């Protein structure tokens, strides 16, 4: 037995155990935080930006460009990476053993031929590329499961081949014949006598497979395919041309992904995870070879390990680990504080903010100012430090504004006249090429309104002086309103296949504009009724055509015929737009100072926009309760909880409510820009928890996933509180974008369903205290984990 123990086995197993202990034990014995960012170090008057070299400023293995400690990331990353590798291994074993066993047991029969052919075919597939294909198929943003599924599909055959070979080897053995002779059924013979003899093969194969899985995970990471997919954000303004890419999950592949681009400037960022991968690959390889030598020298009856007691023990250990992990460590102690968040109190805040008397809180309106004063009063009574202009809570800024002077109108004219209802049948669309005015003309249906070299949806129609109707997918990211204008159209009607919502306006226009409406599919069908066609079918045929053009390999370039047509339907519509004018928006800002002088100049930002879409010229109020009275209501309650526990805070917390979000994130952009020369500048913000649409609807709390790191934090906070937590694919369009594009981890915390936003139905009644409480507790827990733990 001692002779059978060889150095390969000992070193391999020791390395594996070492990583497992480091990875799974890290939360228990290390206070290092793999997600903590530290973009520069102040040294006297000099500020030294990350990445920091190994050994510098206490970073043993250096840091990455966001200043995250590479040792901490590798340590915590071991958990994520090994977990993923073991999940893949498990899945490969299940499929591989099943198919391999069937093939091996029935060797030579048709089923064996089919499986063997499949194994041979899959063995010829280039693993890495094939895996990338499937990662996209399973949606890279869905995280672990996409990788697990993809790597299982590409790699099950290895186990299958090994198991088949081992069984074929066993087949003629006398003990199997003896078992059969004893009258055991075929299955019993297999289960009792063949399976135990397969175990050595399985152990060796598993180790070698694990090595291969780690290697391919490393290669995938190196190519930039990481769990969660990373985040791409626009870096300049809303119309953004440039984009920046962030990888943020603590996993070896993700560190490697960002390191690849810095090989010359900061080689350690790539070398550290690459070496970690190499050690893991080596460990499993050694263990595999070691096991082979071991079993050759000391054939042990591993079959004895196959019993219920061992299985129960394994399941118990896994379960205990799963249950205990969220309940231990410093973060778990904070849940009692997070639970102090009172949903009823938040709902009471909302009752004032979203009261129809506030008139929908259009930025700079009297209703908005009342709501802002309410927030500022609460900040004052909670003892928050004012961080606005001149020692007040208010931060004022000028912004451009444009609005309707009267309700827009839309009617069919001629013999069969009919007036349509704004907000129900149609809506105006304003900003950019979309301006105000009154137009009258015939409807010309121009499909998707595309025009590119060699093809035009306008061909054969008479758009000159008429009104074009557009419905369908754009093919070239062109401005289709501008194409319509160039084709001589005097107005555009776009068809919406979803619900009509009251739009908000960006007060910036091109030199030449035309009026544009959005109408419902039902109205569109009325307008083109004479053609005998249906707008939904037309739209679908355009989508199908586009898909086929993109997916089928064509022998020659086939240019499809446009499906556009003129109509005799005459319409007239008016968008009564006032002039662009300046208004003064007000952000409300207060600070709760942390108690640690080393850390209280770093901030966690929490808040949401206070403004809404206001009141229509006809007096209809859009109460904007969920979008977004809920955010400020929750923010105020978080402020109350944290103020009551302020002695726990080490970092400081900034509470804000923003103005001008509906008009293009104006308030948060101003806040971020204006803070550049102050201690509140973005590089001092640890994270921004943006509370938007946080009070309704659906039963799953969710956050946007621009920052995988912050999303992971929010998800683990939710886990500690016992809430399910999902993600909404990077939706972008809220205040957190102002910080995401400045490299600060930021996420929008809300629900998987937005509810009746931008309609008159967005009232206090749709928001429940329960929804507010769950969102608020997860936010509070996350802020505490960031600001109150070491």
């Amino acid at each position, binding site marked *: 037995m001692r002779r059978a123990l060889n150095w390969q086995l000992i070193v391999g197993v020791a390395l594996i155990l070492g990583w497992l202990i480091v990875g799974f034990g890290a939360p228990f014995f290390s206070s290092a935080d793999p997600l903590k960012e530290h973009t520069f170090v102040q040294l006297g008057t000099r500020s030294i930006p990350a990445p920091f070299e190994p050994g510098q400023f206490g970073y043993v293995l250096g840091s990455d460009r966001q200043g995250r400690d590479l040792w901490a990331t590798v340590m915590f990353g071991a958990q994520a990476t090994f977990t993923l590798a073991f999940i893949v291994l498990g899945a490969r074993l299940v499929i591989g053993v099943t198919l391999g066993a069937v093939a091996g047991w029935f060797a030579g029969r048709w089923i064996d031929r089919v499986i063997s*052919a499949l194994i041979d075919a899959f063995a010829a597939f280039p693993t890495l590329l094939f895996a990338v294909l499937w990662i996209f198929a399973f949606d890279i943003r869905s995280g672990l499961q996409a990788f697990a599924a993809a790597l299982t599909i590409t790699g099950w055959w290895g186990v299958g081949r090994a198991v088949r070979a081992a069984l074929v080897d066993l087949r003629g053995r006398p003990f199997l014949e003896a078992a059969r002779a004893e009258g055991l059924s075929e299955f019993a013979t297999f289960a009792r006598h063949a399976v135990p003899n397969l175990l050595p093969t399985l152990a060796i194969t598993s180790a070698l497979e694990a090595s291969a899985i780690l290697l391919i995970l490393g*290669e995938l990471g190196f190519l930039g395919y990481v769990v969660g997919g990373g985040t791409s954000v626009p870096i300049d303004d809303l119309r953004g041309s440039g984009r920046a890419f962030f990888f943020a999950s603590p996993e070896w592949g993700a560190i*490697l992904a960002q390191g690849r681009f810095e090989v010359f400037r900061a080689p350690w960022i790539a070398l550290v995870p690459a070496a970690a991968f190499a050690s893991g690959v080596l460990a499993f390889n050694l263990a595999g070879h070691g096991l082979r030598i071991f079993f050759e020298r000391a054939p042990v009856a591993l079959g004895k390990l196959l019993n219920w007691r061992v299985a129960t023990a394994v399941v118990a250990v896994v379960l205990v680990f799963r249950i205990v992990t969220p309940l231990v460590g410093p973060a778990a102690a904070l849940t009692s504080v997070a639970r102090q968040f009172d949903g009823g109190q938040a709902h009471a805040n909302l009752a004032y903010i979203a009261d129809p008397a506030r008139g929908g809180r259009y930025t700079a309106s009297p209703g908005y100012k009342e709501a802002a004063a309410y927030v500022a009063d609460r900040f004052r009574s909670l003892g928050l430090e004012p961080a606005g202009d001149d020692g007040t809570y208010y931060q004022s800024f000028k912004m451009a504004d444009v609005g309707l002077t009267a309700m827009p109108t839309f009617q069919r004219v001629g013999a069969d006249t009919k007036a349509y209802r704004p907000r129900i049948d149609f809506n105006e669309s304003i900003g950019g090429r979309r301006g105000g005015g009154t137009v009258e003309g015939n409807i010309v249906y121009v499909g998707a309104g595309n025009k590119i070299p*060699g093809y035009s949806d306008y061909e054969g129609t008479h758009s000159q002086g008429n009104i074009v109707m557009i419905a369908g997918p754009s093919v070239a990211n062109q401005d289709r309103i501008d194409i319509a204008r160039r084709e001589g159209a005097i107005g555009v009607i776009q068809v919406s296949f979803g619900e009509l919502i009251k739009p908000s306006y960006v007060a910036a226009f091109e030199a030449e504009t035309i009026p544009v409406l959005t109408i419902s599919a039902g109205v569109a069908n009325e307008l083109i009724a004479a053609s005998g066609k249906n707008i939904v079918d037309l739209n679908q045929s355009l989508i199908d055509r586009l898909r086929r053009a993109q997916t089928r390999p064509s022998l020659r370039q086939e240019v499809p015929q446009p499906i556009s047509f003129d109509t005799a339907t005459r319409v007239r519509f008016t968008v009564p737009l006032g002039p662009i004018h300046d208004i003064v928006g007000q952000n409300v800002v207060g600070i709760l100072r942390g108690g640690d002088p080393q850390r209280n100049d770093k901030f966690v930002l929490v808040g949401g926009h206070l403004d809404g879409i206001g009141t229509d010229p006809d007096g209809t109020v859009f109460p904007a309760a969920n979008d977004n009275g809920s955010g400020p209501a929750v923010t105020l309650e978080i402020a109350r909880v944290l103020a009551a526990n302020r002695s726990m805070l080490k970092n400081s917390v900034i509470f804000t409510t923003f103005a001008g979000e509906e008009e293009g994130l104006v308030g948060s952009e101003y806040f971020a820009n204006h803070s550049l020369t102050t201690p509140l500048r973005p590089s001092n913000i640890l994270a921004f928890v943006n509370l938007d649409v946080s009070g309704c609807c659906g039963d799953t709390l969710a956050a946007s996933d621009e920052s995988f790191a912050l999303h992971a934090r929010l998800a683990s906070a939710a886990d500690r509180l016992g809430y399910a937590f999902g993600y909404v694919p990077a939706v972008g369009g809220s205040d957190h974008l102002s910080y995401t594009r400045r490299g600060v981890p930021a996420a929008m915390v809300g629900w998987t369903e937005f509810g009746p936003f931008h309609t008159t139905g967005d009232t206090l009644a749709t928001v429940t205290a329960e929804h507010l409480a769950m969102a608020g507790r997860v936010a509070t827990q996350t802020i505490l984990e960031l600001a109150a733990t070491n």
Partner: protein
Amino acid sequence: MVERGTATRVSVAVLTRLLLVILTFVLIVVLSQVAMVSARTRIERTDLPTIAGQAWEGTQDYFTSLASGSLGEATSTSILGGQRRAMGDLLLDAYSKSMILVLLAIGLATAVGILIGVLAAATRSARWRATLLTFTTLTVSLPSFLVAILLILFGAELTARAGIRLWPTFGYGIDNHLILPVVVLALRPFAQIASFAYVATDEILHLDYIRTARAKGLVESLIFARHALPNAAVPIIGAVATGLSIALSTLPVVEVFFSWPGLGFALLQAVRRFDAATAGTLLGALAATIAVVRFGLDALADHFAQRATGAPS
């Protein structure tokens, strides 16, 4: 009679293998369609029957096009305009550029691997055995990206310190641009082949018939060439096949890192566009190559196995 029987048997074997190559190709085209269609429709959250329908449609289109003698076009991002390129062109261009790398790497790995493995076995020293096997185990576990980074850093350091420029770091060229990618690709296959060559030769050198040959007074080099090597060939060929799989699997890493515009590079771009036809064609070409080379190596191994069991003299 006998010869005809052998011929039939050989042609049946060849036919079976040809069928398997075709199966591999068809399977990969179909799976590419399924994968890319579901990647594309994931955005629209479509249901499974729709995905199956669209994948079926795409597969039909693909093979209809193929049956009429054309690979069609590699689509660009735009529906109607944009740059389209004949798929055949793209395939030929990318394929040849990749194969240059792979063939050189495998050639190098095989030559050096066998040489070192056999030489180490010939010394019959226990220290050599331990050194070589430890070295190859370590090398087989070295991920290509780590080797690539280390080599690049080494080159940069050398240029900075001594002003020597050994190799260009990035880019395509049939010159010293080949050095880094080929070396990185060759390293793991080399370790694989060297260790198998060593083990196989070492085992055979301990067999009786070699002792007999020695006893007969044959020159050592003749013993090697006539008796040892042909018998060690079977496991070595197996190692070359494994090495080829390793090299082809790592290929995209090397191509992307060294900006080598080959198959892996083109394929990753196609996947990013969810372009099923291009992905299927390129992957299919690669898989078919692997399958054909595998069968070639199998046949070679059979040949040596027959020689070994046949008359060795």
